[in-house]
């Protein structure tokens, strides 16, 4: 067993893995010039393999370089580093005080890698945008959309059926899933779009929809956002609703429309909306006051703060909280950060994060720091003693 464990446990392997990690981190940094950070994180650091183009390392204006290389991704390297670490300790197992420092450090590193893995898999982030005086009980993920079909007929709640954007994008023919209240055929899916007002759209474009807002405004495809500069895609779709007798109408559903459209299918009224993926919460946040102080005579922000009222009937909570920079609200396993605000200071945008693995990096860092201090501290004292001879 030790025979094939030895190379896995060797320092040589550690150095090789660390060097590969450096290349991956560098590539993952350069890639962010042209692609949004989320895309890069998914492709480079949270996947087992990544194709790195050689062009990444050279400015394209100087020389065009074709080709690339298949490279181990963050998942692979992280796993291998963990294995290397565990194996090293199995082979060179020493529980002495001298080794204690490095043992603790390495254990901390293992926790760190696990922590990043847990975050990647389990963390959920969303945004909550609230107008001053208004309230919200859901978070939105503006990296994905859903087509929501809302059935308002029940008396005390709405029955919402959602179709993820990814499903609409890949739809071939009609979607007639039994979970849907009616069939939907995607006439055109636009991952990113621009909206043409009544004065700019041609009659042909306005005729694509038979009903609803699409008869007054039209959507045309736009090049997809790279995610740089925090711009995201604003999708749109022309969808035909189908009931038992056939098509009922074609509608333009797009994130550009801030409110749902009323549709009637099979004698029943529904609301239809293409919106950022929502996650409803059992509590409501009311925005009482948003403050945006700037430095005198500049547009630079001095501080942002949101005075909110947290209302949660399920837990009997109704209190006021001030959320500001570096001072989030922690509630119900989620943390609310002051992220941004609406144009004209009319409202606030909170970042809502649920990360079950949040504590792991803290644990890890404590372990590594303590371990390093022990390890280097010990060496420093021997070192100084030797010098002063």
């Amino acid at each position: 067993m030790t025979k094939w464990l030895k190379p896995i446990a060797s320092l040589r392997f550690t150095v090789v893995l660390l060097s590969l990690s450096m290349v991956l981190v560098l590539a993952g940094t350069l890639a962010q010039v042209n692609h949004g950070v989320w895309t890069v994180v998914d492709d480079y650091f949270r996947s087992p393999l990544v194709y790195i183009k050689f062009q990444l390392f050279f400015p394209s204006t100087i020389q065009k370089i074709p080709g690339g290389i298949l490279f181990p991704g963050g998942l692979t390297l992280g796993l291998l580093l963990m294995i290397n670490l565990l194996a090293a300790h199995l082979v060179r197992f020493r529980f002495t005080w001298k080794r204690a420092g490095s043992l603790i450090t390495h254990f901390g590193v293992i926790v760190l890698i696990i922590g990043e893995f847990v975050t990647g898999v389990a963390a959920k982030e969303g945004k909550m945008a609230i107008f001053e005086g208004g309230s919200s009980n859901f978070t939105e993920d503006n990296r994905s959309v859903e087509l929501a079909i809302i059935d308002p007929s029940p008396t005390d709640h709405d029955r919402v059926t959602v179709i993820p954007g990814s499903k609409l994008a890949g739809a071939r023919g009609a979607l007639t899933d039994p979970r849907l209240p009616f069939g939907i055929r995607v006439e055109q899916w636009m991952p990113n779009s621009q909206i043409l007002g009544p004065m700019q759209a041609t009659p042909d474009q306005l005729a694509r929809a038979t009903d609803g807002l699409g008869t007054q405004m039209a959507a045309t495809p736009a090049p997809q956002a790279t995610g740089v500069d925090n711009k995201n895609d604003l999708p749109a779709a022309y969808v035909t609703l189908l009931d038992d007798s056939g098509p009922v109408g074609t509608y333009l559903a797009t994130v550009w429309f801030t409110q749902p459209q009323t549709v009637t299918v099979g004698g029943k009224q529904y609301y239809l909306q293409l919106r950022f993926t929502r996650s409803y919460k059992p509590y409501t946040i009311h925005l009482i006051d948003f403050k945006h102080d700037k430095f005198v005579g500049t547009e630079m922000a001095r501080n942002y703060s949101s005075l909110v009222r947290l209302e949660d009937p399920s837990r009997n909570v109704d209190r006021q909280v001030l959320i500001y920079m570096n001072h989030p609200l922690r509630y119900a396993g989620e943390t609310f950060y002051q992220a941004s605000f609406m144009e004209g200071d009319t409202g606030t945008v909170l970042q809502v994060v649920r990360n079950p693995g949040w504590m792991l990096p803290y644990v890890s860092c404590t372990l590594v720091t303590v371990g390093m201090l022990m390890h280097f501290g010990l060496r420093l004292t021997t070192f100084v003693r030797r010098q002063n001879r």
Partner: protein
Amino acid sequence: MRIRLLVPIAAVVLALLYLVPQLAPRPTDSQFDLEAFGRIPVSAEGRIKPLDTVARNTLMRFGGKQTIRDDGRKIPAIEWLADLLSHRTSPANPSTTVAASLPIFRIDHPDLLDLLGVTPEQKKNRFSFDELFAHRDAITRQAGLAFQVDAKKRGPYQRRIVGLYDTLSRYIALSRYDTPYAVPPLTANEQWRPLGEMLMDGSAGSDEAAASLTAIFNAYAAQNSGEFNDAVADYLRLVRADLPGATRKAGYETLFNRMTPFYHASALYVYAFLLSSFAFMLTSLSKPDWARALGRGAIAVLVLAFFIHTIGIISRIYLQGRPPVTNLYSSAVFIGWICVMLGFVIEKLFRLGIGTIAAAAIGFVTLVIAHNLSSGGDTMEMMQAVLDSNFWLSTHVVCITIGYSATFLAGFLGITYILLGVLTPVLKPDRAKALARMIYGVICFAALMSFVGTVLGGIWADQSWGRFWGWDPKENGAALIVIWLLIILHARWGEMVRERGVAVLAVAGNIVTSWSWFGTNMLGVGLHSYGFTDSAVFWMLTFATSQLAIMALGMLPIALWRSTGVRAINQRSPTPRVATTSA
């Protein structure tokens, strides 16, 4: 015996002979008390600062210097500002003002010069406002076109024309009193206000401060020195009564501007470097007494330089009310400071003179880098809301900066090892060993500080927006340094490299650190879009190439190294594997 004492004293005396005259107040033949005028506090870019700072920063922005040369005379920034704000008519040309006819703008780009109708033969790169304003239609049109393009995608010409338009707008805003916000809040519930607005809406007459400021400008325009000096003194009295803290700080900042501590510190670092290098040479030439004496002289001068450097940093902390590192400029100043301190420690431990050399060299270089970073404007700029936390600024940022310093120091020592080892015979075995131990020790320290600093950054991010690690360029840059230092340590522990290898890898650490410090900032500006025309990119690439060249030198077969001492250590046969985790 005597040289032990005399030489260091002589060295310090020489240093003081240079320093004292520089720091003494300059006699001026002007009857106008411009020094007091410079102390007037105003609010600009969100910070309360003296007019002296506004003047210096503006001239730096426009022309890269804090003074103007006109007819052989050097005009100080504050005098120029007085001319501008008073709209003093030019005696030579009554249809314009003095300020508008001074050549304060520096333009080098050939296409811009073309736009202004300047031919290469004219060799003209300084312009007055009047000269530029004459072309304003063309400038506005070109700038308008450039503004349509997304800021990150603009070509070099477009960036510069936008910059020129911005510069002209700034000048105009100054002369219209739209900036800085000169009128102080003398009663409760008031804010700093721009004088221009008050003049336009007529409220200037009824505001004591505004009227007083106007009187100052009028007096200067009329070139009435008595009235001017009185008006300035009155105004300062007025403001001091209601805003004593701001006035005091503005006064100190004016003094600080004049003293230029970092400039003098860097001059002294050069001096210390020469002394310590000379001392090192003498050791090799077997003149131990003189070598030691010069060495002590070098340390004495270094202490003096460090003292001035420290005063500069403390002054900035006082003036800003913030921990020492808040932007790129202050990080450069701080890196130098830490490296000098570490240099002292190394010198104390090893007493080889190398610590002093390293301290002086790095101190000088970092202050030069800092100076080059100061051309953009106010180095004590305000910080955005997200970064505005004294706790994290003093822990995370300081730690990371110390990590940078240590890595650079290790890199410098590595360069010393390679250059001395390959090119000279002075690296005897004991020296080589000591130097190698220095490098190793500093790397350990760097690894610890870099790791702790990076972790603190993660915790700050987690507290701020819920994400411990976001893989963004700056974070990745810090991670790269940590990983690289770990590679060096593990490679050494696994006996994959020896002293020479560690030295070479330490030099590579310089490239990794400069990437993290500077390179990540340049990504957003479109490193891909213009390649080599921006000077910062040029310098970074030059630096990286130089380090690679030294590394290549270091990779020469040991047999070719001139210092025989190095050979012995690096050619030892590997020790039998007993404990392979650490050496």
